[in-house]
């Protein structure tokens, strides 16, 4: 077994992270003046957080109006106001699929975003809350995906249902739900193979998997998109297509332990109204946290801790 991987996220990490974050606070370091340069730098900060140029232009435009109308006194006040606006945008009403009663949750997303890891973390989390969890290994495509999820199931101490590599993912879902009802599980997590939203065939496959889940599940079926915080503007296209095909209930935003801000979820919230419910902040079992719109917004405008 590997050395405890979560041990790696030591002091070194936070030190460098602080240094890199510093550049966003430039907005405050230059002093309290709200001048043309301030606005330009503010726009730059939002773009660099992957908010997107359209949303940024609109946000900053609105903020300039508000600043003039309400005579916001200084840069700090403007930033606080901006953070509040971003938080409001990111705070989408909606049920948390992991905290609103028994559910079967289909975990989907493009390749490598952190689906399998998130399933492991979510399972451990639910177990800690005293829930009965079963996970299903419906990624029968990627090499060693089954083995990978098996390790996570062991770590989280939950049963995992699998079939052979290459098996029909719908059949795995069927088996998983049978096992779940036998065990009286109240949370079923289904890991699916990563796929690009542009692949018509693979998206159709997922629709089929969802259909099986809906048919066989004793509990409501929820579909959750796992999105990588380093994703740029393509994230909106991903969310759009997965939502169009499956109807998304929520997003898990991963890899927020890096320097990316994950600003694209603002665009997703605005256009599609899909709430972010959890964030991934590392590769360990415990590196999962609830999404906090205020913290998120503070990090985007560079006012985070």
């Amino acid at each position, binding site marked *: *077994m*590997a*050395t405890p*991987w979560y041990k*790696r*996220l*030591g002091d*070194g*990490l936070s*030190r*460098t*992270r602080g240094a*890199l974050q510093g550049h966003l606070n430039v907005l405050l370091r230059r002093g309290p003046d709200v001048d043309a340069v301030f606005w330009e730098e503010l726009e*730059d900060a939002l*773009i*660099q*957080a*992957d908010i*997107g*140029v*359209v949303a940024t232009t609109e946000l900053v435009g609105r903020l300039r109006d508000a600043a003039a109308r309400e005579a916001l006194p200084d840069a700090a006040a403007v930033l606080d106001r901006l953070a509040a606006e971003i938080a409001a945008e990111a705070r989408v009403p909606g049920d948390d699929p992991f905290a609103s009663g028994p559910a079967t949750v289909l975990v989907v997303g*493009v*390749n*490598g*975003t*952190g689906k399998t890891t998130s399933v492991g973390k979510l399972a451990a989390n639910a177990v800690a809350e005293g829930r009965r969890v079963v996970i299903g290994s419906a990624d029968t*495509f*990627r*090499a*060693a*995906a089954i*083995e*990978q999820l*098996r*390790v*996570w199931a062991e770590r989280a101490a939950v049963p995992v249902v699998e079939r052979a590599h290459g098996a029909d993912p719908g059949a795995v879902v069927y088996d998983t739900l049978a096992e779940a009802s036998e065990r009286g599980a109240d949370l079923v997590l289904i890991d699916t193979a990563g796929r*690009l*939203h*542009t*692949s*018509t*065939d693979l998206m159709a496959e997922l629709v089929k998997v969802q259909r099986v889940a809906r048919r066989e599940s004793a509990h409501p079926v929820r579909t959750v998109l796992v999105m*990588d915080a*380093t*994703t*740029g*503007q*393509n*994230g909106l*296209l*991903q969310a759009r297509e997965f939502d169009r095909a499956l109807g998304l209930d929520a997003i898990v935003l991963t*890899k927020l*332990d*890096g*320097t*990316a*801000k994950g*600003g*694209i979820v603002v665009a997703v919230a605005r256009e599609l109204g899909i709430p972010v419910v959890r964030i991934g902040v590392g*590769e360990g079992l415990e590196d999962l946290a609830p999404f906090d719109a205020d913290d998120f917004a503070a990090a985007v405008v560079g006012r985070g801790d």
Partner: protein
Amino acid sequence: MFENLSERLQAVMGKLTGRGVLSEADVDAAMREVRMALLEADVNLGTVKEFVARVRERSVGQDVMKSLTPGQMVVKIVLEELTALMGRGESRLVFSGRIPGVVMLVGLQGSGKTTAAAKLANLLRKQGRSPLLVACDVYRPAAIDQLESLGKQLGVPVYRGEGTDAVAIARAGVQHAVSTMRDTVIVDTAGRLHIDEEMMAEAAAIRTAVHPDQVLMVIDAMTGQDAVNAAAAFAQTVDFDGVIVTKLDGDARGGAALSVRAVTGKPIMFAGVGEKLDALEPFHPERMAKRILGMGDVVTLIEKAQDAFDTSQATDLEDRLRSGVFTLDDFLAQLQQVKKMGSLGDILKMIPGANKLPKDAEIDEGALARTEAIIQSMTRKERAKPSIINGARRERIAAGAGVRVFDVNQVLKQFAQTQKLLKQVQTSQKGGKRRRFGMPGLPGGL
């Protein structure tokens, strides 16, 4: 909203051709659009600023060529500058000649290193090398199994060491290559955050231990503004010689590739374009430039067609695409080939402007059969000149094909749209180098 830069610039600069010199005002309006297009493609903000400044400088006072509109003139300059920034031509792996040659892959988590390692092994083997894959990701669960399984699929041996010391495994892997007579080692490493000092130090230590001929950073095409932070940190701590951009088979514009190139000066060497192990291509900077600008990728489209068509047919199609002659017969022939080429949706995505097609343009199998029947119910004359298909003819065709007149209208509409798209393709190709078809062949020499 305009999808590609060419359209945007036409809209802000007008469509008149040959209008003397580009004025300051013209250029200002154009540069706002250029900036927007690049940012939407995820090109890093700093890179965008420098780029726009350079294009502005070149554009003001520039003579507009007779055949071009001011918008097209700016597009031409933008494309030239963008291509220059991406680097020209293919960049190849360079081996020192020492045996075994060593290639090491590094990158963030989930960027696609393991798959890229296997694809690279496949490619190098096709070029006559005998690769050994070395599994150094001792952290991610089953990462080693994943590489082993990919190796098995390819029939390429995989070295999985003992213990959890990635540096020792890498070193032993190279030794193993020597004792098993493999001439090339591909070292797969764990994904790591560029701000994780310990893990970055590990990558640097692996580098020192195995002296790779080439270190490649693997970058996800969908990465946003953060790409340059990661790339700059990897360049500084581990250093790398080139980049593999993955997941380019999706619809990401891939501005990150440009930024990484601009910020680190490292060439993009390969593009990952699918999950299959042969889906790794040499990288073409000029195509990437067009892709970033949303100008489609007619070259890739044609190459994809070539896989399905035989060469003469493909050349034929190419000529038609380029000459703008495209009849209902071609439309039918194309639809029939579509099944061989994969989904029509995938192909449409490569055509400039096709993302604006109505959703029903995604033809399902039933619609395909219907379309076939409809076109076959037309006379030769009708097929050659669809404009003569009036109401009465539509009714006759519908009856002949056993469909509603509405369906006939749909097909004619789709055809008209396709024709329009091809015209656009043709215009955007004008002035560009005329590129003849070669046989698909292997990427030469690396």
